[in-house]
Protein backbone atom coordinates (compact mmCIF):
# COMPACT_ATOMS: atom_id res chain seq x y z
CA UNK A 1 0.00 0.00 0.00
CA UNK A 2 3.01 2.26 0.40
CA UNK A 3 3.61 2.42 -3.34
CA UNK A 4 4.60 5.84 -4.67
CA UNK A 5 5.44 6.99 -8.17
CA UNK A 6 7.95 9.53 -9.49
CA UNK A 7 6.73 12.26 -11.82
CA UNK A 8 7.55 15.82 -12.88
CA UNK A 9 5.80 18.98 -11.68
CA UNK A 10 4.47 20.92 -14.67
CA UNK A 11 2.24 23.47 -12.95
CA UNK A 12 1.87 24.78 -9.41
CA UNK A 13 -1.45 25.99 -7.99
CA UNK A 14 -2.39 26.92 -4.41
CA UNK A 15 -2.34 23.65 -2.38
CA UNK A 16 -1.94 21.44 -5.47
CA UNK A 17 0.39 20.83 -8.40
CA UNK A 18 -0.08 19.14 -11.75
CA UNK A 19 2.33 16.22 -12.01
CA UNK A 20 3.19 14.52 -15.27
CA UNK A 21 3.82 10.75 -15.25
CA UNK A 22 5.12 10.14 -18.77
CA UNK A 23 2.06 11.69 -20.36
CA UNK A 24 -0.51 11.05 -17.61
CA UNK A 25 -1.34 14.22 -15.73
CA UNK A 26 -2.53 14.13 -12.17
CA UNK A 27 -3.40 16.77 -9.58
CA UNK A 28 -1.49 16.16 -6.37
CA UNK A 29 -1.61 17.93 -2.99
CA UNK A 30 1.53 19.96 -2.22
CA UNK A 31 1.18 20.55 1.54
CA UNK A 32 4.05 18.22 2.49
CA UNK A 33 6.79 19.71 0.27
CA UNK A 34 7.47 23.07 -1.41
CA UNK A 35 7.73 22.39 -5.13
CA UNK A 36 8.46 24.32 -8.32
CA UNK A 37 7.83 23.59 -12.00
CA UNK A 38 10.38 21.07 -13.26
CA UNK A 39 10.91 19.31 -9.91
CA UNK A 40 11.01 15.53 -9.94
CA UNK A 41 8.67 14.38 -7.16
CA UNK A 42 7.39 11.20 -5.53
CA UNK A 43 3.58 10.96 -5.33
CA UNK A 44 1.67 8.74 -2.89
CA UNK A 45 -2.14 8.62 -2.50
CA UNK A 46 -2.60 11.93 -4.29
CA UNK A 47 0.08 13.79 -2.30
CA UNK A 48 3.60 14.81 -3.12
CA UNK A 49 5.64 13.02 -0.48
CA UNK A 50 9.14 14.21 -1.35
CA UNK A 51 11.33 15.67 -4.08
CA UNK A 52 13.51 13.16 -5.91
CA UNK A 53 17.19 14.04 -5.89
CA UNK A 54 19.01 13.44 -9.15
CA UNK A 55 22.38 12.15 -7.97
CA UNK A 56 21.32 8.81 -6.53
CA UNK A 57 23.88 6.87 -8.56
CA UNK A 58 26.83 8.82 -7.18
CA UNK A 59 25.52 8.67 -3.62
CA UNK A 60 24.95 4.93 -3.83
CA UNK A 61 28.39 4.32 -5.23
CA UNK A 62 29.98 6.25 -2.35
CA UNK A 63 27.88 4.27 0.12
CA UNK A 64 28.94 0.94 -1.40
CA UNK A 65 32.59 1.82 -1.06
CA UNK A 66 31.93 2.87 2.53
CA UNK A 67 30.24 -0.41 3.59
CA UNK A 68 32.88 -2.49 1.83
CA UNK A 69 35.69 -0.57 3.54
CA UNK A 70 34.01 -1.05 6.97
CA UNK A 71 33.20 -4.73 6.54
Amino acid at each position, binding site marked *: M*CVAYPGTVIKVQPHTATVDFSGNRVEARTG*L*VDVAVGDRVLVH*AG*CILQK*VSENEAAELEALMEEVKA*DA
Partner: protein
Amino acid sequence: MTDLAEMRRFLSQYDGPKMRIMEICGSHTASIAKNGIKEILSPAIQLISGPGCPVCVTPTAYVDRAIALAKRPDTCLVTFGDLLRVPGSSESLSAAKGMGASVEMVYAPADVVTFAKKEPDKQFVFAAIGFETTIPVYALLMEELLREEITNVKLLTACKTMPGAVSFLLENGADLQGFLAPGHVCTVTGSDAFAPLAKKYGIPFAVAGFEGEELLAALYGLLHMQGKGMVKNFYPSVVTAEGNPKAKELIERFFEPSDAAWRGLGIIPGSGLCLRAAYASFDAGSRDLTEDNQQNQACRCGQVLTGKLAPTDCPLFGKVCTPLTPQGACMVSEEGSCHTAMRYQ
Protein backbone atom coordinates in the same frame (compact mmCIF):
# COMPACT_ATOMS: atom_id res chain seq x y z
CA MET B 1 32.93 0.31 -9.00
CA THR B 2 30.26 -2.06 -7.62
CA ASP B 3 28.15 -3.02 -10.58
CA LEU B 4 25.02 -5.10 -10.75
CA ALA B 5 26.88 -8.17 -11.99
CA GLU B 6 29.24 -8.06 -9.05
CA MET B 7 26.36 -7.69 -6.58
CA ARG B 8 24.52 -10.64 -8.14
CA ARG B 9 27.65 -12.75 -8.07
CA PHE B 10 28.32 -11.90 -4.45
CA LEU B 11 24.73 -12.56 -3.35
CA SER B 12 24.52 -15.89 -5.15
CA GLN B 13 27.93 -17.19 -4.05
CA TYR B 14 27.84 -15.95 -0.44
CA ASP B 15 28.75 -18.78 1.96
CA GLY B 16 29.33 -16.91 5.23
CA PRO B 17 27.20 -17.12 8.39
CA LYS B 18 23.47 -17.61 7.84
CA MET B 19 21.58 -14.34 7.23
CA ARG B 20 17.83 -14.32 7.85
CA ILE B 21 16.71 -10.95 6.54
CA MET B 22 13.23 -9.52 6.98
CA GLU B 23 11.75 -7.22 4.39
CA ILE B 24 9.28 -5.34 6.56
CA CYS B 25 7.32 -3.68 3.80
CA GLY B 26 4.64 -5.39 1.69
CA SER B 27 5.67 -3.43 -1.41
CA HIS B 28 9.14 -4.91 -0.99
CA THR B 29 7.67 -8.42 -0.69
CA ALA B 30 5.81 -7.90 -3.96
CA SER B 31 8.84 -6.48 -5.77
CA ILE B 32 11.15 -9.25 -4.50
CA ALA B 33 8.76 -11.83 -5.94
CA LYS B 34 8.24 -9.95 -9.20
CA ASN B 35 11.98 -9.60 -9.77
CA GLY B 36 12.75 -13.21 -8.80
CA ILE B 37 15.27 -12.06 -6.21
CA LYS B 38 14.92 -15.08 -3.91
CA GLU B 39 15.92 -17.35 -6.79
CA ILE B 40 19.34 -15.75 -7.21
CA LEU B 41 20.26 -15.64 -3.51
CA SER B 42 22.65 -18.16 -1.98
CA PRO B 43 20.93 -20.68 0.36
CA ALA B 44 22.72 -18.95 3.26
CA ILE B 45 20.58 -15.84 2.67
CA GLN B 46 16.91 -16.16 3.55
CA LEU B 47 14.29 -13.47 3.00
CA ILE B 48 11.33 -13.35 5.36
CA SER B 49 8.25 -11.20 4.84
CA GLY B 50 7.32 -8.95 7.73
CA PRO B 51 4.14 -7.27 8.97
CA GLY B 52 4.37 -4.30 6.61
CA CYS B 53 1.20 -4.57 4.60
CA PRO B 54 -1.29 -2.22 6.26
CA VAL B 55 -4.25 -4.19 4.92
CA CYS B 56 -2.90 -7.49 6.27
CA VAL B 57 -2.44 -6.22 9.80
CA THR B 58 -5.83 -4.48 10.04
CA PRO B 59 -7.93 -6.51 12.48
CA THR B 60 -11.35 -7.97 11.73
CA ALA B 61 -13.02 -5.68 14.27
CA TYR B 62 -11.98 -2.69 12.15
CA VAL B 63 -13.49 -4.17 9.00
CA ASP B 64 -16.71 -4.95 10.92
CA ARG B 65 -16.91 -1.35 12.12
CA ALA B 66 -16.35 0.02 8.63
CA ILE B 67 -19.15 -2.21 7.30
CA ALA B 68 -21.50 -1.13 10.10
CA LEU B 69 -20.87 2.53 9.20
CA ALA B 70 -21.41 1.85 5.48
CA LYS B 71 -24.81 0.34 6.28
CA ARG B 72 -26.08 3.46 8.03
CA PRO B 73 -28.60 5.18 5.77
CA ASP B 74 -26.94 8.60 5.98
CA THR B 75 -23.31 7.46 5.75
CA CYS B 76 -20.89 6.64 2.95
CA LEU B 77 -17.67 4.76 3.70
CA VAL B 78 -14.77 5.87 1.51
CA THR B 79 -11.71 3.66 1.18
CA PHE B 80 -8.70 2.57 -0.84
CA GLY B 81 -9.52 -0.45 -3.00
CA ASP B 82 -7.11 -2.63 -1.01
CA LEU B 83 -9.48 -2.90 1.91
CA LEU B 84 -12.59 -3.91 -0.03
CA ARG B 85 -12.11 -7.67 -0.03
CA VAL B 86 -10.70 -8.17 3.46
CA PRO B 87 -12.95 -10.60 5.33
CA GLY B 88 -14.73 -9.16 8.35
CA SER B 89 -16.33 -11.54 10.83
CA SER B 90 -19.27 -12.20 8.54
CA GLU B 91 -18.62 -10.39 5.25
CA SER B 92 -16.28 -8.02 3.42
CA LEU B 93 -16.88 -4.38 2.48
CA SER B 94 -17.31 -5.39 -1.15
CA ALA B 95 -19.94 -8.00 -0.21
CA ALA B 96 -21.72 -5.39 1.90
CA LYS B 97 -21.60 -2.95 -1.03
CA GLY B 98 -23.18 -5.63 -3.23
CA MET B 99 -26.04 -5.76 -0.72
CA GLY B 100 -26.58 -2.02 -0.91
CA ALA B 101 -24.21 -0.56 1.69
CA SER B 102 -22.70 2.75 0.64
CA VAL B 103 -18.99 2.23 -0.14
CA GLU B 104 -16.86 4.38 -2.46
CA MET B 105 -13.35 3.55 -3.60
CA VAL B 106 -10.75 6.28 -4.22
CA TYR B 107 -7.02 6.57 -4.96
CA ALA B 108 -6.55 9.80 -3.04
CA PRO B 109 -8.09 10.52 0.39
CA ALA B 110 -8.52 14.18 -0.65
CA ASP B 111 -11.26 13.04 -3.08
CA VAL B 112 -13.54 12.77 -0.07
CA VAL B 113 -13.52 16.59 0.08
CA THR B 114 -15.17 16.74 -3.33
CA PHE B 115 -17.81 14.19 -2.26
CA ALA B 116 -18.51 16.07 0.96
CA LYS B 117 -19.03 19.39 -0.84
CA LYS B 118 -21.35 17.82 -3.36
CA GLU B 119 -23.54 16.13 -0.75
CA PRO B 120 -23.38 18.30 2.38
CA ASP B 121 -26.20 16.40 4.09
CA LYS B 122 -24.43 13.08 3.90
CA GLN B 123 -21.80 11.88 6.36
CA PHE B 124 -18.57 10.57 4.79
CA VAL B 125 -16.16 8.33 6.68
CA PHE B 126 -12.69 7.70 5.31
CA ALA B 127 -11.17 4.35 6.26
CA ALA B 128 -7.78 5.75 7.20
CA ILE B 129 -5.45 2.77 7.45
CA GLY B 130 -1.74 2.91 6.86
CA PHE B 131 1.80 3.42 8.04
CA GLU B 132 3.97 6.53 8.20
CA THR B 133 3.90 6.83 4.40
CA THR B 134 0.15 7.46 4.34
CA ILE B 135 -0.43 9.10 7.74
CA PRO B 136 0.80 12.55 6.56
CA VAL B 137 -1.72 12.28 3.71
CA TYR B 138 -4.46 11.98 6.37
CA ALA B 139 -2.94 14.87 8.30
CA LEU B 140 -3.08 16.96 5.14
CA LEU B 141 -6.70 15.92 4.65
CA MET B 142 -7.44 17.11 8.20
CA GLU B 143 -5.83 20.46 7.42
CA GLU B 144 -7.95 20.77 4.29
CA LEU B 145 -11.18 19.86 6.16
CA LEU B 146 -10.46 22.62 8.68
CA ARG B 147 -9.46 25.14 6.01
CA GLU B 148 -12.57 24.45 3.93
CA GLU B 149 -14.78 24.24 7.04
CA ILE B 150 -16.09 20.83 6.09
CA THR B 151 -17.92 19.10 8.91
CA ASN B 152 -19.42 16.04 7.23
CA VAL B 153 -16.20 14.01 6.96
CA LYS B 154 -14.76 11.79 9.69
CA LEU B 155 -11.84 9.38 9.79
CA LEU B 156 -11.97 5.79 11.01
CA THR B 157 -8.30 5.40 11.77
CA ALA B 158 -6.07 2.35 12.07
CA CYS B 159 -2.74 4.12 11.67
CA LYS B 160 0.38 2.24 12.68
CA THR B 161 4.06 2.96 13.08
CA MET B 162 6.69 0.58 11.73
CA PRO B 163 9.40 0.85 14.40
CA GLY B 164 6.72 -0.25 16.91
CA ALA B 165 6.16 -3.54 15.11
CA VAL B 166 9.86 -4.18 14.50
CA SER B 167 10.61 -3.58 18.15
CA PHE B 168 7.88 -6.08 19.09
CA LEU B 169 9.39 -8.76 16.82
CA LEU B 170 12.89 -8.25 18.17
CA GLU B 171 11.69 -8.19 21.78
CA ASN B 172 9.99 -11.50 21.17
CA GLY B 173 13.20 -13.08 20.02
CA ALA B 174 12.69 -13.19 16.25
CA ASP B 175 15.64 -15.03 14.67
CA LEU B 176 16.75 -12.30 12.26
CA GLN B 177 20.17 -10.94 11.31
CA GLY B 178 19.13 -7.93 9.26
CA PHE B 179 16.27 -5.80 7.99
CA LEU B 180 15.41 -4.20 4.68
CA ALA B 181 13.88 -0.99 6.00
CA PRO B 182 10.78 0.37 4.21
CA GLY B 183 11.81 3.06 1.70
CA HIS B 184 8.63 5.10 1.62
CA VAL B 185 8.04 4.98 5.37
CA CYS B 186 11.61 6.29 5.74
CA THR B 187 10.90 9.03 3.19
CA VAL B 188 8.64 10.48 5.88
CA THR B 189 10.29 9.36 9.13
CA GLY B 190 13.91 9.51 7.97
CA SER B 191 16.28 6.55 8.18
CA ASP B 192 17.16 7.66 11.73
CA ALA B 193 13.80 6.30 12.91
CA PHE B 194 15.32 2.81 12.92
CA ALA B 195 18.65 3.81 14.49
CA PRO B 196 17.64 3.21 18.14
CA LEU B 197 16.46 -0.33 17.29
CA ALA B 198 19.60 -1.07 15.28
CA LYS B 199 21.72 0.02 18.20
CA LYS B 200 19.72 -1.69 20.92
CA TYR B 201 19.68 -5.08 19.19
CA GLY B 202 23.01 -4.84 17.35
CA ILE B 203 21.28 -5.56 14.06
CA PRO B 204 21.80 -3.82 10.68
CA PHE B 205 19.06 -2.03 8.73
CA ALA B 206 19.38 -1.12 5.04
CA VAL B 207 16.82 1.34 3.70
CA ALA B 208 15.79 0.06 0.28
CA GLY B 209 14.04 1.36 -2.81
CA PHE B 210 11.55 -0.72 -4.76
CA GLU B 211 13.27 -1.54 -8.06
CA GLY B 212 15.09 -4.85 -8.45
CA GLU B 213 18.53 -3.21 -8.55
CA GLU B 214 17.75 -1.07 -5.51
CA LEU B 215 16.77 -4.14 -3.52
CA LEU B 216 19.93 -5.97 -4.61
CA ALA B 217 22.08 -3.01 -3.59
CA ALA B 218 20.47 -2.91 -0.13
CA LEU B 219 20.92 -6.67 0.32
CA TYR B 220 24.53 -6.43 -0.79
CA GLY B 221 25.02 -3.63 1.72
CA LEU B 222 23.35 -5.60 4.53
CA LEU B 223 25.70 -8.55 4.03
CA HIS B 224 28.60 -6.16 4.50
CA MET B 225 27.05 -4.75 7.68
CA GLN B 226 26.61 -8.09 9.48
CA GLY B 227 26.48 -7.91 13.24
CA LYS B 228 26.60 -4.12 13.24
CA GLY B 229 23.86 -2.12 14.91
CA MET B 230 23.60 0.55 12.23
CA VAL B 231 21.28 1.97 9.58
CA LYS B 232 22.47 2.77 6.07
CA ASN B 233 20.37 4.46 3.44
CA PHE B 234 20.40 2.74 0.04
CA TYR B 235 17.51 4.88 -1.26
CA PRO B 236 19.09 8.34 -1.14
CA SER B 237 17.01 9.74 -4.01
CA VAL B 238 14.09 10.32 -1.61
CA VAL B 239 15.25 9.27 1.86
CA THR B 240 17.32 11.41 4.21
CA ALA B 241 18.40 10.79 7.79
CA GLU B 242 15.76 13.16 9.16
CA GLY B 243 12.92 12.49 6.67
CA ASN B 244 10.31 15.03 5.64
CA PRO B 245 10.08 17.67 8.41
CA LYS B 246 6.83 19.21 7.13
CA ALA B 247 5.13 15.81 7.04
CA LYS B 248 6.36 15.01 10.54
CA GLU B 249 5.09 18.36 11.87
CA LEU B 250 1.66 17.79 10.36
CA ILE B 251 1.42 14.30 11.86
CA GLU B 252 2.44 15.72 15.23
CA ARG B 253 -0.21 18.44 14.95
CA PHE B 254 -3.14 16.10 14.33
CA PHE B 255 -2.12 12.73 15.79
CA GLU B 256 -0.86 11.33 19.06
CA PRO B 257 0.61 7.91 19.91
CA SER B 258 -1.83 5.20 20.95
CA ASP B 259 -1.90 1.45 21.41
CA ALA B 260 -2.75 -0.42 18.24
CA ALA B 261 -4.16 -3.85 17.42
CA TRP B 262 -2.19 -5.73 14.75
CA ARG B 263 -3.82 -8.75 13.20
CA GLY B 264 -1.82 -11.75 14.34
CA LEU B 265 0.41 -9.79 16.69
CA GLY B 266 -2.23 -8.50 19.11
CA ILE B 267 -2.06 -5.13 20.82
CA ILE B 268 1.33 -3.43 20.71
CA PRO B 269 1.50 -0.50 23.14
CA GLY B 270 2.37 2.82 21.54
CA SER B 271 2.54 1.38 18.01
CA GLY B 272 -0.36 3.39 16.62
CA LEU B 273 -1.45 6.96 16.03
CA CYS B 274 -4.91 8.34 16.81
CA LEU B 275 -6.40 11.78 16.20
CA ARG B 276 -5.67 14.12 19.10
CA ALA B 277 -8.51 14.85 21.53
CA ALA B 278 -8.86 18.36 20.08
CA TYR B 279 -10.01 16.76 16.81
CA ALA B 280 -12.30 14.16 18.38
CA SER B 281 -15.23 15.49 16.33
CA PHE B 282 -13.46 14.13 13.22
CA ASP B 283 -13.02 10.65 14.68
CA ALA B 284 -15.54 7.97 13.70
CA GLY B 285 -14.90 5.95 16.88
CA SER B 286 -11.43 4.58 16.19
CA ARG B 287 -10.07 4.37 19.71
CA ASP B 288 -11.93 1.32 20.96
CA LEU B 289 -11.04 -0.94 18.03
CA THR B 290 -8.59 -3.11 19.91
CA GLU B 291 -9.90 -6.66 19.43
CA ASP B 292 -8.15 -9.05 17.12
CA ASN B 293 -10.86 -11.62 16.52
CA GLN B 294 -9.99 -13.71 13.52
CA GLN B 295 -12.51 -15.30 11.22
CA ASN B 296 -10.99 -18.66 10.21
CA GLN B 297 -9.31 -20.15 13.29
CA ALA B 298 -6.98 -22.24 11.10
CA CYS B 299 -5.55 -19.12 9.40
CA ARG B 300 -1.87 -18.71 10.24
CA CYS B 301 -1.58 -15.03 9.29
CA GLY B 302 -0.12 -14.21 12.70
CA GLN B 303 2.80 -16.59 12.25
CA VAL B 304 3.23 -15.61 8.61
CA LEU B 305 3.37 -11.91 9.53
CA THR B 306 6.04 -12.55 12.15
CA GLY B 307 8.18 -14.64 9.83
CA LYS B 308 7.71 -17.87 11.83
CA LEU B 309 5.91 -19.72 9.04
CA ALA B 310 6.13 -19.46 5.28
CA PRO B 311 2.72 -19.06 3.58
CA THR B 312 3.10 -22.53 2.08
CA ASP B 313 3.31 -23.98 5.62
CA CYS B 314 -0.28 -22.93 6.32
CA PRO B 315 -2.60 -25.95 5.91
CA LEU B 316 -5.19 -23.80 4.13
CA PHE B 317 -2.75 -22.27 1.61
CA GLY B 318 -3.79 -22.87 -1.99
CA LYS B 319 -6.58 -25.23 -0.89
CA VAL B 320 -9.33 -23.53 1.07
CA CYS B 321 -7.50 -20.22 0.94
CA THR B 322 -6.84 -18.70 -2.50
CA PRO B 323 -6.95 -15.14 -3.84
CA LEU B 324 -10.57 -15.77 -4.86
CA THR B 325 -11.55 -17.27 -1.50
CA PRO B 326 -9.22 -15.54 0.97
CA GLN B 327 -9.46 -16.82 4.56
CA GLY B 328 -7.03 -14.30 5.94
CA ALA B 329 -5.90 -10.80 5.07
CA CYS B 330 -2.47 -11.99 3.90
CA MET B 331 -4.23 -13.60 0.93
CA VAL B 332 -6.39 -10.57 0.14
CA SER B 333 -3.90 -7.81 -0.34
CA GLU B 334 -1.83 -7.79 -3.51
CA GLU B 335 1.09 -7.17 -1.17
CA GLY B 336 0.25 -9.86 1.38
CA SER B 337 2.80 -12.64 1.73
CA CYS B 338 0.26 -15.39 0.99
CA HIS B 339 -1.12 -13.62 -2.08
CA THR B 340 2.40 -12.96 -3.35
CA ALA B 341 3.39 -16.59 -2.72
CA MET B 342 0.36 -17.83 -4.71
CA ARG B 343 0.97 -15.49 -7.59
CA TYR B 344 4.61 -16.32 -8.11
CA GLN B 345 4.76 -19.96 -7.02
